[in-house]
């Protein structure tokens, strides 16, 4: 796991699949990287989408962490 210091390496940041800005979440059910706005839009559509578990991405290396959105 990266320790959060991004001095040594340059990690490529994943971009949100809908709006191409920086992604901060990963939805396993949709298999998609999303930013918070798109995640709100997508997963508020119906109760089936709301059930999806999304996990936060590490701010430095953009890999899924074990932290998930608590809603």
């Amino acid at each position, binding site marked *: 796991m990266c320790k959060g210091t991004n001095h040594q390496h340059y990690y490529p940041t994943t971009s949100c*699949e809908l709006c191409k800005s920086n992604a901060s979440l990963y939805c396993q*059910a*949709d298999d998609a990287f999303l930013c918070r706005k798109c995640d*709100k839009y*997508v997963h508020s559509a*119906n109760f089936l989408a709301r059930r*999806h578990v999304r996990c936060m991405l590490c701010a430095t290396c953009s890999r899924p962490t074990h932290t998930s959105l*608590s809603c």
Partner: protein
Amino acid sequence: MGYNCDYCREARSMVYCRSDEAYLCLSCDRNIHSANALSKRHSRTLVCDKCNSQPAVVRCVQEKLSLCQNCDWESHSGSNSASGSHSRQTLNCYSGCPSAVELSSIWSFMSDSDNKNGQDSACEQEMGLMSITDNKSGQDLLVPAENNDAQNVIQQPDPNDSFTFKTSGTKGSEQYMDVAFCDDFSMDEVDLSIEKYEVLFGVGNNDPENLFAQDGIDSLFGPMDTSVAKESSTGYENGFQPACSNAASGDSLRSCKTEPNPCYRTQLSNISFSSLTGDSNAGDYQDCGASSILLRGEPTWSTPAHDSTTSSGIRNDAVLRYKEKKKTRKFEKTVRYATRKARADVRKRVKGRFVKAGDAYDYDPMSQTRSY
């Protein structure tokens, strides 16, 4: 789950969405998966005709049933050699928003079945349900004319469809609020926990100084003097909140359950619990209330003789610590971790040193050597 559509709970479920993990009828499937670009990507598959509770994986041509793995195994393996020879086709998944025509072309076996006998009830249902309207284009879709009586034309007025969209939209907007609230709330919780962590550990560092300053080291290791405890505790009890009273050690621990400080101190509690609770109250005070700090702070730092910033003070502290640790020295052979000893006992060695598993060794404790 299973027989009825998970969304409308009215119609029978026809397809299973793997991403949403939900059984849906065709109308709801279309509504839900046309909402946004991500849901269009979900792959859906038919539901088992026999058990209606699992997604189907194969289609038995002879029986004209879509079966899940379990039902397929049950009906086609086992003792039945006749049924074991049924030919089976794998079922395809679909994604996106296909029209009824497209769906029937994917599952072409549906249109081939039972033209002679008249429709099976299941097949008829399927074809009837497949004539769903297209929300966007507003066309009425006709089932392919290959089926004799499957000329169902179900015309749902557009307001109905838009109505369903609207309700889901309003629900969605409500949920926006909840999601936003939840999101922010969760982030705040994270921040809170981090702040508390620093505060608590900041307090924890100060405590050894307090311990030395107030009662000296001997109090840590002395006998359990309840009189000493009472002196230190009564001094602090004046401003105390009732929750933090020193009447019972358990109370002081319970009052600040979220802090690890009590846990930190329970390690030392075996030695001298009474004096420590007096000191832990000092630590608790810094977290419990600002007003109490005024009462507490003065007795802690009012004695310059115990100040540890001067060089003689530092040396004094070091000497006292050395003398105390000297009392607990033990020169016997001690094992700190039994599991590590167990591991070390079986490792191969070369000249008494451990070697990696694949390397050469000249002593293996596992091999039994006989000495006579």
